[in-house]
């Protein structure tokens, strides 16, 4: 019921902002969220990598200095039960548990703001307690390393509780177009950020990691990961369809210095949604970010790594209410908190940004960087992700995180012991040599004087 209301809100603001959608770009900072920070021209490229199905606490809940898992966290194992499940570290197999994840589950977990239904919401009771599991820096070394080197957001929420597709729609259109699940009931026709970019003659691409090599009709999963596939305006005409390309093209574009102004990247086989292996998704993201760092585009890029929804995993943060009554919508509660990192040479290195953000902040960031008009009230009123940037700082030098194959650090031996033993051996041998010379010094001196004064006959 609440999710449907969210959908109504998101859908209705789209109508109100439809005019703005067709009027084209609006110059000036005032076009986007009020008093939104600007990139000051330092950012020429925005990349959005949207992975799937993990909550903030699931990935970063045990990280120091973040709004992480509370010490007393414990979720009841059944409704009205006194027994509860405490957060625990997941094994690699457990991390791939196929948790239930849909609108009903999220509502139960939310439980009117109590946030106590993450275990009971799971339909499969055999694995329901796994929802309380978490991964740490040993499991996700690359993501934790990124968090140390760039800006980690610990109050970034999925905009919708209804699943991946609604949230991904919000990420490109600042609305969910009335979607209450991942099932597409019909063509979706709403203005998107790409319309704005086209009008401003700015390049964009939607890079998709293909799941099948042969051409085929988009599956539900593909549509939920790539919402443009639900929109006839993008699938019907060749020029627009040409914007939806393989991730292989992303690497090519970086190598050739042809990265467009805005890039969205989505994965199929490495999306991290259970039962996919998070480590594999991490490796995929690592390859994307490494290539960016190795390209000429790095120095002017802001890359946002985020997740479409929580995947059913526990998160303790109570989702806030967004939207304002009287502006064409009504207040609504967003989804569960998701991990989000801003990677850029101008990111605030190692800082945790607690600005309240949600998926609609993504189009808002693009609008702010490129001075575009907002799409809906959501992005217009969204807080800015750009608070994670400081364009006046010395740009961060890119550094590739080692892969797991080379990240094994060999313990440094006790070098003092090595020096001591070898120098002791050297001195011991030297002592014997000196002793030998001293004992026959006179004899040697005699011989020396003999041959130095003796010219060759």
């Amino acid at each position, binding site marked *: 019921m609440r999710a449907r209301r969210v959908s109504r809100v998101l859908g209705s603001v789209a109508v109100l902002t439809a005019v703005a959608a067709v009027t084209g770009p609006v110059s000036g900072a005032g076009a986007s969220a009020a008093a939104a920070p600007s990139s000051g021209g330092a950012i020429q490229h925005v990349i959005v990598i949207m992975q799937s199905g993990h909550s903030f606490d699931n990935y970063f809940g045990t990280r120091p200095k973040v709004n992480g898992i509370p010490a007393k966290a414990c979720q009841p194992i059944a409704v009205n039960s006194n027994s509860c499940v405490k957060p625990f570290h997941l094994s690699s197999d457990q991390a791939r548990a196929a948790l239930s994840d849909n609108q009903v589950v999220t509502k139960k977990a939310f439980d009117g703001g109590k946030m106590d239904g993450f275990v009971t919401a799971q339909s499969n009771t055999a694995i329901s307690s796994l929802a309380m599991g978490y991964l740490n820096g040993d499991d996700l070394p690359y993501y934790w390393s990124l968090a140390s080197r760039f800006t980690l957001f610990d109050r970034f929420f999925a905009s919708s509780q209804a699943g991946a597709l609604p949230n991904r729609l919000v990420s490109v259109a600042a609305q969910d177009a009335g979607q209450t699940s991942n099932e597409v009931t019909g063509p979706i026709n709403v203005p998107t950020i790409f319309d704005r970019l086209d009008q401003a003659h700015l390049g964009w691409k939607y890079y998709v990691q293909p799941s099948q090599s042969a051409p085929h009709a988009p599956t539900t999963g593909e549509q939920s990961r790539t919402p443009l596939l639900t929109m006839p305006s993008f699938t019907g005409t060749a020029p627009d369809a040409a914007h939806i390309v393989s*991730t*292989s093209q992303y*690497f*090519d574009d*970086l*190598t050739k210095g042809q990265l467009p102004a805005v890039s969205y990247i989505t994965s199929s086989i490495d999306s991290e949604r259970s039962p996919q292996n998070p480590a*594999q998704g991490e*490796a*995929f993201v*690592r*390859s*994307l970010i*490494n*290539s960016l*760092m*190795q390209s000429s585009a*790095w120095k002017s890029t802001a890359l946002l790594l985020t997740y479409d929804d929580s995947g059913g995993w526990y998160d303790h943060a109570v989702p806030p209410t967004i939207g304002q009554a009287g502006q064409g919508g009504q207040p609504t509660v967003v989804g569960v908190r998701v991990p989000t990192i801003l990677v850029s040479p101008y990111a605030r290195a190692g800082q945790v940004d607690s600005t309240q953000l949600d998926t609609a902040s993504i189009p808002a960031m693009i609008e702010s960087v490129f001075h575009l008009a907002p799409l809906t009230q959501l992005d217009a009123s969204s807080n800015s992700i750009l608070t994670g940037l400081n364009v006046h700082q010395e740009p961060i*030098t*890119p*550094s*590739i*995180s*080692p*892969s797991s*194959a*080379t990240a094994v*650090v*060999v*313990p*440094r*031996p*006790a*070098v003092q*012991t*090595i*020096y001591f*033993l*070898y*120098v*002791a*051996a*050297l001195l*011991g*041998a030297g002592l*014997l*040599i000196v*002793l*030998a010379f001293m*004992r*026959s010094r006179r*004899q040697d001196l005699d011989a020396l004087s003999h*041959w*130095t*004064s*003796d*010219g*060759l*006959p």
Partner: protein
Amino acid sequence: MTLLSDERARVDAPPIEEPRPAAAWRLPRHVPTSAWLVLTLVTGLLVRVINLNAFGFNSDEAVYAGQSASLAGNPLFVNQFPVFRAHPLLLPTLLSPLFSSGSPDLRGRVVVAFLGVATIGTVFLIGRELYGPKTGVLAALILALMPYHVIVSRQLLLDGPAVLCITLAFWMLARFVRTERFEWLAASAALLGLAVLTKETAIVLAGSMILFLLVSAEVRRPGRAVALTVGVLAAVSLAFPLAIQLAGRSSTGQSYLTWQLTRSSNHAETFYLTAIPAAIGFAVVAAAAGGLFFKVNRTWRELLLVSWIVVPFVTFEVYPLKGYQYLLPIAPALALLAARGLATWHLPARWDRYTGTVARPAVIAIVLASLLTSVWSVMFPLGGTSALAGQGGVSGGREAGKWIGANLVPGSELMTIGPSVANILEYYGHRPAQGLSVSTDPLHRNPAYTPIYNPDLSVRNGQFSYLVWDAYSADRSPSSAHRLQVLVARYHGLPIHTERAGGRPIIVIYKVHP
């Protein structure tokens, strides 16, 4: 204290007897021996340092330099080059202050070159000890110009310094025989211990010493002498296993030992017979053999030199693993035997009067000239892409590594054909590199190397964004070179940097992506 009773001890050694004083060289009498020696040492130094930095490090040099830097705590190398690898650490320990910052190469080579010159000086000392100063100078001059010794002592390898210790050890062994003083034998064994701490293969020379001590009639109490030698040698060498054990890397040492003992043959049995005589100089080999076989009055001196040569030669010939520089320890002995041969040969009696005036100087000049010709090509090589390990630097390796260091994002990983060029690029470029040819079977790979278990996957998942082809490795491992080229073609390889020599590409760095 001596090995002999006091009354039999010969405190004053008998004067050195020249083999044939009457047939000595006819060189200017006013030039003292010391001047000839200085001239020899200067010559030896010049041929070892001129154009020394023409090429960057080869793989072995990069490893030893990297070890030294890692030992010194150089932040560029601490995580990239493990301190413990295959060999003992005496040289890296001593060189480490030179490698505490940056990635230098010349200074390490200069040190080794000077140690090479010290070896020349030591050969003079042995020659003087055994045959007199004139033969000593000639032997030193032969070693100074011997391409084999020049090549190795122009590189930051362990072999040059190890040979210095070995040569000093044999000098003191000779002194022991002449004086029968215990101290010289102990000092000799200690120096051999230092040689072992420089490179463990020097232990083979203990066989030479023991053989000599047991066989030579000059050694009165061979059993006691051998016991003393073994005891001192073991005591000094103990630093090697102790360092591994006490510094916390015992498993590393065991891994290397297992690998060294089980390595398969890397060269044919004829490798030494075909590769080494040319490097030593055919004329030198002929002079040494000729002098040995045609001169009948063989003494303990020749026995000492022959023992010095035979034991390592037979051992390394039998040992399946062959290395170009493994036989370097016999070079000083060969120089001494050659000098002896050249200094003592005679024309037939009817022309003997021309021996000292014309024939001997002419032959010596021809021998030295033949060496000089070869040494010239060592000093001014056309290209450093020889496929034989230990023969010199790798052309373009340093330049490619520095380009990588300047242009590739830190942490970028490189896939090379083999581990040799990976070592070089890691040293100069400070980026992790792995060789495609490294076996996935732990029994068939150097424990220091990490294999690429699935090269295709590792490119697809973005571990490797750069693939490096090089002519040097392609020559050694064509199949791995082919595999790398397949990956380059499959993953949209774009050449982003090429090093050339003589107009042809020798190192090509490709950017690849899934």
